[in-house]
């Protein structure tokens, strides 16, 4: 339908700007507004000489007491001017490749100015925030990878949320009963089963894929809440998973900032990075990847070339579900470390948005996930600073970011051509 609407609008604006130019101008206007906001709202409202102290080390780090002190007012003013400059550069409609980069740089600078404003006159643990950015990104990235695995073969997976929730439940219960590895295995199996269920409904019965996904979400929510109320409330010992130790990587973990950000985590976090790289290599450098992509783009041609479309779809959707299971295990065993009703709280859908934001690419998903993790982490840390914005509004941030993202901040994204279409073999 987008294509149709676009045709309608192009008919109206025949001799106007190309879409890229229009985007560049739009981004320019937005950046100028953002810059002015930083300049007047942050810069001029901070008292002169007030310092913002960013702590760069955690208590567990080898190198202690690193910090970065800036004059909050001067910093915000300079940042405001830079963002306005970026915006003006966009208005000239040159170097169109740089539109997204300038947008990203603009937002990063904006976040820094915001933090300087929020932390003016006090201390703020920058490294703590960056570390939790990575942790909070894990489920989002894994959700995005799940969606990507399915959509690359043409199956829309709205049920990521349910797959995460159900596998978190299975992981917590099995881990409490039999230990961490059983929990992880159980979570991955449950995720895979729900993946199979989605594929079965979508491929065998041609059920509308979005409805099939919604059903998975309902089933997962209903069943886990029911079992949580009927079983976990009764047998508390089943809701106490074993603690998972962090694997601190020698030497690398001692690097200031980067060390605590990336090299001092549970195996789940490393697993996420491995998955991103593995799926990237798999999709673009192996026969499996070529087949998967061809099934997602043009199933009929793939079928003609002798590829079993149904088998490829089943396999990838099940694999996607297993990846979601891994994410659910992280959520239940490491991040929250117990099961709570509806503990996913929409994160599966944020993962879906991250997949779109990342343009159906594994590294794109990683980048998008980190952006969401950052938004969430800022929200959590700023809530502690108590700056007068009600916490409910801060809590809205990740969801609003998602809306802005899917509304096309990143410009045109192109899903796989056969996404969401059932394939009926002739």
């Amino acid at each position, binding site marked *: *339908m*987008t*294509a*149709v*609407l676009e*045709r*309608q609008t192009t008919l109206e604006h025949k001799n106007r700007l190309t879409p890229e130019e229009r985007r560049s101008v739009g981004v320019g206007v937005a950046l100028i507004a953002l810059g002015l906001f930083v300049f007047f709202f942050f810069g001029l409202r901070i008292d002169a000489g007030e310092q913002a102290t960013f702590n760069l080390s955690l208590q567990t780090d080898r190198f202690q007491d690193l910090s970065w002190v800036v004059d909050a007012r001067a910093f915000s003013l300079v940042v405001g001017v830079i963002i306005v400059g970026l915006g003006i550069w966009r208005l000239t409609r040159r170097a169109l490749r740089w539109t997204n980069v300038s947008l990203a740089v603009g937002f990063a600078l904006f976040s820094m100015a915001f933090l300087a404003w929020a932390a003016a006159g006090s201390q703020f643990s920058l490294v703590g925030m960056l570390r939790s950015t990575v942790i909070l990104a894990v489920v989002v990235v894994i959700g995005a990878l799940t969606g990507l695995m399915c959509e690359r073969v043409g199956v*829309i997976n*709205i049920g990521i949320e349910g797959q995460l929730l159900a596998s978190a439940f299975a992981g917590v219960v099995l881990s409490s009963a039999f230990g961490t590895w059983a929990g992880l295995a159980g979570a991955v199996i449950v995720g895979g089963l729900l993946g199979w269920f989605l594929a079965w*409904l979508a491929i065998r*019965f*041609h*059920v*509308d*894929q*979005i*409805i*099939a996904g*919604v*059903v998975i979400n*309902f*089933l997962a*929510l*209903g*069943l886990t*809440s*029911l*079992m949580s*109320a*009927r*079983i976990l409330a*009764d*047998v508390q010992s089943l809701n106490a998973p074993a603690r998972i130790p962090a694997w601190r990587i020698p030497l690398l973990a001692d690097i200031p900032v980067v060390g605590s950000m990336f090299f001092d985590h549970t195996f789940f976090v490393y697993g996420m990075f491995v998955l991103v790289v593995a799926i990237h290599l798999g999709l673009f450098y192996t026969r499996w990847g070529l087949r998967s992509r061809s099934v997602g783009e043009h199933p009929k041609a793939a079928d003609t070339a002798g590829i079993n479309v149904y088998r490829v779809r089943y396999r990838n959707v099940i694999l996607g579900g297993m990846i979601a299971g891994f994410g659910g295990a992280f959520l239940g065993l490491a991040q929250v470390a117990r099961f709570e009703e509806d503990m996913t*709280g*929409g994160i599966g*859908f944020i993962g*879906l*948005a991250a997949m*779109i934001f990342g343009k159906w690419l594994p590294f794109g998903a990683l980048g998008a996930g980190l952006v969401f993790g950052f938004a969430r982490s800022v929200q959590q840390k700023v809530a502690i600073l108590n700056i007068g914005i*009600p916490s*409910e*509004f801060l*809590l*809205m941030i990740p*969801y*609003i970011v*998602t*809306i802005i993202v*899917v*509304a*096309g901040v990143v410009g045109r994204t*192109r*899903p796989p*051509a056969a*996404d*969401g*279409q*059932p394939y009926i073999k002739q």
Partner: protein
Amino acid sequence: MTELPPDNQPDDAMADVPEQPSSEGRKMMRRMTGVDESWRQALVVPALSILLALIVGAVIIMVTDVDAWRLMREDPVAALGEMLEGVWVAYRALFLGAFGSVRAISETLFTATPLILAGLAVAVGFQTGLFNIGARGQMFMGGLAAVWVGLHVELPAVLHVSLAILAAIVVGGIWGGITGLLKARTGAHEVITTIMLNFVAAFFVLWALKTPAFQEEGSNLPQSAPLPESVRLPAIFGEQYRVNIGLLIAIAAVFFVYWLMYRSTLGFEFRATGFSPTASVYAGMNVSFLLTAVMFVSGALAGVAGSTMTQGLPPYTVTSNFAGTIGFDAIALALLGRSHPFGVLWAGLLFGALIAGGRSMQAAAGVSVDLVIVMQALIIVFIAAPELVRTIFRLKKAKAEPAQLTKGWGG
């Protein structure tokens, strides 16, 4: 949905039906009910779906019976007996809670009221090819607007009730319209935007109910001050039963949606857009406007559903979860009712019974009302995959399977 030109149905679609109504009557029935095939065909799959959902629900009750499992090692027969008794107790409570007394029937109708309205909201979206998961958020915003009017405007009763509902219509409609506008202008998929707006609305309500504009003076509970008498929806059968004129509003809305979708030009264009956006564009329809308008209508209906949960829910102090799971139940309902207003009405009454019964099941048998969510999910599966039901019960294959309801990302 497939009845755009009503005369286009192949005649042999009726071949295996023994008694055919006259062709005039058939057309009439089709218009009124949205049922293309015979009544038997139309009812068989939903009825079997509900039956299957009840069976699976029974299995779930048995499997999650912790006490019975503890007994299993010593005396498996007694344990099995206890499980079956658990099912009997639960389903008995479910049935009695839905139909067992005048109060139970009142509860069923009361529960059905917002379900019907929200179900209509989803159904209108389905008919235009949009999947509105945002009824929850639209209910929140609409309901909150009604509360604001209730607390800050002073009017005589009839006017006050109407003005509050109007506020719910406008605000709920705008909240839904945002999604339509985003879809039309940027192609942002409505499934994601509506879900995100649900969260935003929920946080907004959470915040608003802690502000002096809504709180009772001197209280710091996160809930609104009690709504004044003049804005409450009056009860129909006396104060002791909760069913109120919201039910009449819901029924009126059913007829309004029927008129809108099947009798007005706008509704024709809505359905045409759902049927084929490409064709609608070439027929000169303004698809951007239609998408926004239909989401406005959808959001407005959900907004009224929200207002019945604030203006109509004793004790009339509004808490932050007044929308409950109605926004999601509405999806199952719209599917069960095949997106037709009258279908939604019956499905709404059925789900009202299921949920009202589920509440008394939770109280009497300790089976959490979450079981109803599972049953709804199963009903959706079976309705959306009629072939599955036919395979299980070895029925004959139907002539026409329902078409794809929603569109992918690219649409």
